């Protein structure tokens, strides 16, 4: 257990905080400002719901990894070490697996994540507009131990990174 993260963790708690305002500023990871309740303006429901027309229905319906990639991108991915896939060795729980994808490849137009052993391998897909960073972090569900494949479309070509994530149930007998 490296010492630094403990220090960071403990520093957050030992901070002599006289008035513990509800909007606690002591965000756990240093980078974040408010952890408490969101400093959110009133929520207006006027904004129109997003258009589901663009939702890649067929790609999400595919039952194999290869088909999902073919339907979504129409081309084969090429493994690249410029695609960084951050996923755990052993998922603490298959229901909530933190997975992050980032890349240094130029003009990225889409990032997707496929879990090959899931009943429907395509898990999530993110079109990346200009001005948006080629980085996304999300939490996925995994049915069982499987390869997780990060796909990045850059300059019209498809690149990928793959990592196996082990998933088993936890806990005692029952």
């Amino acid at each position, binding site marked *: 257990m490296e010492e630094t993260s403990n220090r960071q963790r403990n520093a957050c708690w030992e901070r002599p905080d006289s008035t513990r305002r509800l909007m606690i500023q002591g965000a756990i990871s240093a*980078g*974040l*400002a*408010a952890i408490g309740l*969101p*400093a*959110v*303006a*009133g*929520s*207006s*429901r*006027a*904004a*129109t*719901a*997003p*258009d*589901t027309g*663009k*939702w*890649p229905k067929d790609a*999400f319906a595919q039952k194999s990894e290869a088909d999902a990639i073919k339907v979504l991108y129409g081309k084969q991915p090429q493994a690249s070490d410029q695609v960084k896939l951050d996923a755990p060795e052993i998922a603490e729980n298959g*229901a*909530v*697996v933190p997975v*992050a994808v980032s890349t240094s490849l130029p003009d990225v137009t889409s990032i997707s994540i496929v*879990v090959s052993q*899931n*009943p*429907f391998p*395509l*898990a*999530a*897909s*993110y*079109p*990346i*507009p200009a*001005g*948006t*960073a080629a*980085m*996304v*972090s*999300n*939490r*996925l*569900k*995994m*049915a069982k131990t499987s390869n997780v494949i990060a796909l990045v479309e850059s300059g019209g070509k498809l690149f990928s990174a793959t990592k196996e994530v082990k998933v088993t149930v936890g806990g005692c007998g029952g």
Partner: protein
Amino acid sequence: MASTIRIRAVADGDTTVVQALVQHPMDSGFVKDAQGNFIPPHYIEVMEFAHAGKTVFTAFWGPAVAKDPYIKFSFKGAQKGEDLTVSWVDNKGAADSLVGKVQ
């Protein structure tokens, strides 16, 4: 009713790092309830983030996204105090949206 969306957008120079958490069951359709019947699929399909009228991020999700889904991304061109509109719609047509402030 409190919104189902929690958002935290923090401007750091020209880049705004956005995190969002949505209260949604994201049922995959493969899980059984206590009586042994399958809980039907019920998940968010599209979630969009817009700033100054332009879509800055879109998420296409399927049944493999975790319950109470979380997303983190970053984009350029927003200043502190500006609005960021978030909206989602699921496969049953339910929807919700929220206007958050960049901090």
